[in-house]
C-alpha cells in the first residue's frame, strides 16, 4: 500500500516502539507534523527550544534504556539540536534525531533554512543519513535505531527533505538490518577472559572501576557477583554512579577530579584494576602517568577503540559487559583480600571526604543531603554542570541505576531542566528532582513552559550562589582569586517560576530547607525552590588540573595542601 514519506516515517517509529517525540515544528517538517494526528500512539512533546528536545530525548533514553527521539526543522532547528546530539554522543546515549531538510530541488542552493546538518553532525553522531527517496525511509529508520541502541549506544541523525515527506512509496518494514560495516562484538574472547580471571585471582590489591557501560549493559547483578565473590572494592566513574549500590559495603564512591579521596587512593595503590565499561576520561584519571602506576589493567568495554586509548591496558576484553562478566565470574576464585580492606577502610576513615562542614549558613551540600533524606534516596536526580553537579553526585547516595542523570563528557550547562523533562516523561511514576545552578538554569529556563504545558511534576532546586560557581572556584584556587566575569545576576527565580505558572519558594535560611523540600514533594505538580546558598562554597576534594589523583586538595583548604602518595 502506498503511503507518504511522512506516514512511512511514523509507521516505522511505531514499529520501533517509539512512544514519545520531543520536537519543535517548522517549515520543512510541516508535512510530518500534519501526519501526526493519524498516529495518536506517538506522543509529541513541544519544547521551547530544540536544544531542549535533544537533551530531553537523551535523558529519556538514559532512564528508559531505549532510544530517545527528537525532531526539529531544517536550518536553525537542526543546528539548535547540535549541543544535545554532542552531549548524547559523548555520554553514549542512544538517540535518534530527525531533522527536516529543504526540498530536494533546493539542496545545495543555500535555500531558506537550508543547512548541511549531516555534514555538521558528522563528528558527533554514530552515523547519519540524508534520505533522498521515500522508499529508503523504512530501511534507514530500522538501521538508525539498530545503530543507536546496539554496541556502544549513541546518536544517529536522519535528515529528510520536505518533499520526501510528501513523496509516495510502498511501505514495508524490514525485519533485519544489513550493515556489513557495523557488527559490534558481543561476546568476549574466551582466552582473554581466562587471562583476566587469572590476573584477578592473583591480585592482592584489586579495585573495580565501573562506568556507564555497566548501566547500559544492565550488568548490575554480574558486577555485584564479581565484587562480592572476590571481595573487591568497587569505585565508579561519575556516569557509572548507581551501577553499584553506593550504600553497599564494597562501594568506595567514585573517582576523579572531585571523587572521594579514598577512592582515588585505592585506585592509585591497586595492583590490579578491573575497568568495566568506562573510558579513562581525563577527569577520571587525573594525570595519566601517575594513574595506578603499579596496576595491571583489565579493561572490559564494547568499544575496541577505547582499549589502550588513554591508559595502557594489559588484558583487554571487547564485548558486552553482561556477557563477559557471566563467563568471567565462573572463573573467579572466592577471596577476601583482608589486608587490602584494612588499608582502604583506613583511608576511608582518615579522609571522610564528604562531611558537611559545621555552619549556620545555608550550605549547598546541606540542601542536597536534605533532598536525599526526604526522598529517602528514592528519586531521579538530574543535574546541571558545575558545582551543583558535583555536590549532587557527592551528597546524595545512589543505590539504583540511572538515578543520577548528568552531562558527563560534554559538560553541558543547561542540560538540567530539559534533562529532567526527559526523565519525568520516561519514568512518570518516579520522583524527579532537577538540581540546577543559577547559571545553567538560565540557559534553558524556557523549558519551564514545556513542564507546565505537559503538566510534568518535576521538582526543581536551584543552588543559587550568584556565581558561575565552578569557574569561580577555579579562579579562586588557580587564578589568584580574580573573579573575572563569574559573578552573575539572576532574575527573581520565584517570580519567573510563577510567571510560567509553577509555584515556587525562596529559601535563605538553613532552618527552612526541610520544610521547603517537603512542600515541593507534597505539591502534586511541578515546584521550584530557589535555595540562596553560601556564595563562595567550594567543591572538595579537587584534584588540581595537571595533578595526580592522589594530589587532591581536601576540605578545608585555606591554602594548597598536597598529600604525598605514600
Amino acid at each position, binding site marked *: 500500500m502506498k503511503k507518504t514519506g511522512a506516514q512511512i516515517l511514523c509507521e516505522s517509529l511505531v514499529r520501533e516502539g517509539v512512544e514519545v517525540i520531543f520536537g519543535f515544528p517548522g517549515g520543512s517538517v510541516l508535512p510530518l507534523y500534519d501526519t501526526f494526528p493519524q498516529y495518536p500512539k506517538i506522543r509529541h512533546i513541544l519544547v521551547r527550544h530544540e536544544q531542549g528536545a535533544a537533551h530531553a530525548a537523551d535523558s529519556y533514553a538514559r532512564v528508559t534504556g531505549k532510544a530517545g527521539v527528537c525532531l526539529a526543522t531544517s536550518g536553525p532547528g537542526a543546528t539548535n539540536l547540535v549541543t544535545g546530539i554532542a552531549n548524547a554522543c559523548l555520554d553514549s546515549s542512544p538517540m535518534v534525531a530527525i531533522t527536516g531538510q529543504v526540498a530536494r530541488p533546493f539542496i545545495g542552493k543555500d535555500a531558506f533554512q537550508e543547512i548541511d546538518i549531516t555534514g555538521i553532525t558528522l563528528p558527533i553522531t554514530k*552515523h547519519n543519513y540524508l534520505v533522498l527517496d521515500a522508499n529508503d525511509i523504512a530501511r534507514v529508520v530500522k538501521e538508525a535505531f539498530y545503530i543507536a541502541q546496539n554496541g556502544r549506544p549513541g546518536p544517529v541523525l536522519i535528515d529528510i527533505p520536505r518533499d520526501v515527506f510528501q513523496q509516495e512509496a510502498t511501505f514495508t518494514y524490514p525485519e533485519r538490518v544489513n550493515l556489513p560495516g557495523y557488527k559490534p562484538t558481543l561476546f568476549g574472547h574466551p582466552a582473554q577472559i581466562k587471562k583476566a580471571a587469572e590476573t584477578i585471582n592473583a591480585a592482592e590489591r584489586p579495585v573495580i572501576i565501573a562506568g556507564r557501560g555497566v548501566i547500559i549493559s544492565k550488568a548490575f547483578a554480574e558486577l555485584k557477583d564479581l565484587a562480592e565473590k572476590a571481595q573487591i572494592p568497587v569505585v565508579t566513574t561519575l556516569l557509572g554512579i548507581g551501577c553499584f549500590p553506593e550504600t553497599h559495603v564494597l562501594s568506595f564512591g567514585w573517582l576523579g577530579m572531585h571523587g572521594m579521596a579514598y577512592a582515588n587512593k585505592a585506585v592509585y595503590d591497586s595492583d590490579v584494576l578491573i575497568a568495566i565499561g568506562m573510558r579513562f576520561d581525563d577527569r577520571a584519571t587525573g594525570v595519566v602517568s601517575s594513574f595506578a602506576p603499579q596496576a595491571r589493567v583489565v579493561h572490559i568495554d564494547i568499544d575496541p577503540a577505547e582499549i589502550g586509548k588513554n591508559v595502557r591496558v594489559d588484558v583487554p576484553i*571487547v564485548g558486552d559487559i553482561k556477557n563477559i562478566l557471566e563467563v568471567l565470574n565462573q572463573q573467579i576464585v572466592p577471596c577476601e583480600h583482608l589486608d587490602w580492606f584494612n588499608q582502604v577502610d583506613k583511608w576511608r576513615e582518615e579522609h571522610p571526604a564528604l562531611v558537611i562542614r559545621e555552619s549556620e549558613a545555608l550550605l549547598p551540600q546541606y540542601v542536597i543531603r536534605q533532598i536525599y533524606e526526604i526522598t529517602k534516596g528514592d528519586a531521579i536526580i538530574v543535574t546541571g554542570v558545575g558545582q551543583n553537579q558535583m555536590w549532587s553526585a557527592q551528597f546524595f547516595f545512589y543505590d539504583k541505576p540511572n538515578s543520577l542523570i548528568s552531562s558527563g563528557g560534554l559538560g553541558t550547562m543547561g542540560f538540567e531542566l530539559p534533562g529532567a523533562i526527559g526523565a519525568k516523561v520516561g519514568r512518570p511514576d518516579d520522583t524527579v528532582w532537577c538540581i540546577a545552578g543559577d547559571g545553567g538554569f538560565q540557559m534553558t529556563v524556557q523549558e519551564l513552559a514545556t513542564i507546565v504545558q505537559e503538566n510534568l511534576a518535576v521538582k526543581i532546586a536551584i543552588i543559587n550562589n550568584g556565581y558561575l560557581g565552578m569557574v569561580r572556584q577555579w579562579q579562586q584556587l588557580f587564578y589568584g582569586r580574580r573573579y573575572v566575569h563569574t559573578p552573575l545576576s539572576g532574575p527573581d527565580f520565584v517570580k519567573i517560576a510563577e510567571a510560567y505558572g509553577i509555584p515556587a519558594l525562596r529559601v535563605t535560611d538553613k532552618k527552612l530547607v526541610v520544610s521547603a523540600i517537603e512542600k515541593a514533594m507534597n505539591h502534586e505538580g511541578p515546584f521550584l525552590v530557589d535555595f540562596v546558598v553560601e556564595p563562595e562554597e567550594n567543591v572538595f576534594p579537587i584534584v588540581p588540573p595537571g595533578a595526580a589523583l592522589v594530589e587532591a586538595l581536601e576540605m578545608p583548604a585555606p591554602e594548597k595542601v598536597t598529600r604525598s602518595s605514600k
Partner: protein
Amino acid sequence: MTIARHILVALVEDRPGVLNRVSSLLRRRNFNIDSIAVGHTEQPNLSRMTIVVEGDDAKVEQVRKQLDKVVDVVKIVDITSNESVARELALVKVKATASSRSEIIQIVDIFRSNIVDVSSDSVMVEVTGDEEKVNSLLDLLRGFGIREIARTGRIALTRGGAGPLQVEESREVKVPKQAPKAASSEAESPPDW
C-alpha cells in the same frame, strides 16, 4: 615511539559522503594524510581506499580503530608490516625542446615509463611504480623543467593468496599489529562477516 608511514587499506560502502567520513575523522584526530586513493573493487557496492598516514604505531592503531567504527567502513587494516606491493601513477609534463627530447626519451625508457603526449615544447610522461621510483624519475626530469605533475597517491595489495580485506577469508587472517598489546587482535577476532 617511532613515527613511521603507515598504509591503511579499507573496504568501504560505495556511498556518497564516505570519503568525507574517513578524511574528516583523520583530520579530527590530527593526522596529516600523505595520500588517499579510492576506487572500485572486485565486489559491487564496495570501494577500496588506500590511505597513507604518518604517526607512531599506537596513534595509527587508535585511528584505525576509530575508522573501523565508521558504519560505512566494512573493514580496515594496517598493512604496513605485511609483504605488499604498493604502486602509484604519475603524469609529468616536462619541457622538451628538439635538442632535449631524445635525452628525455632515454631516461623514460630506463624507467620503463611511457611518453603519452608530445607537443612542440613539452612531453608528457606516464610513470608507474613505487614511490621511490617515481621520485627518482622526477628528480632526473627536474633538470629539463617540469611544468605540471599529477600523482595518484599509493594503492597497495598484500602479496600471496588471501588478502586481509578479502571478506570471506578474513576470519583466518591474523593482522600483524601489536600496537597497544593484544588490543588489536582482540578487536579483530570475532566479527562474523
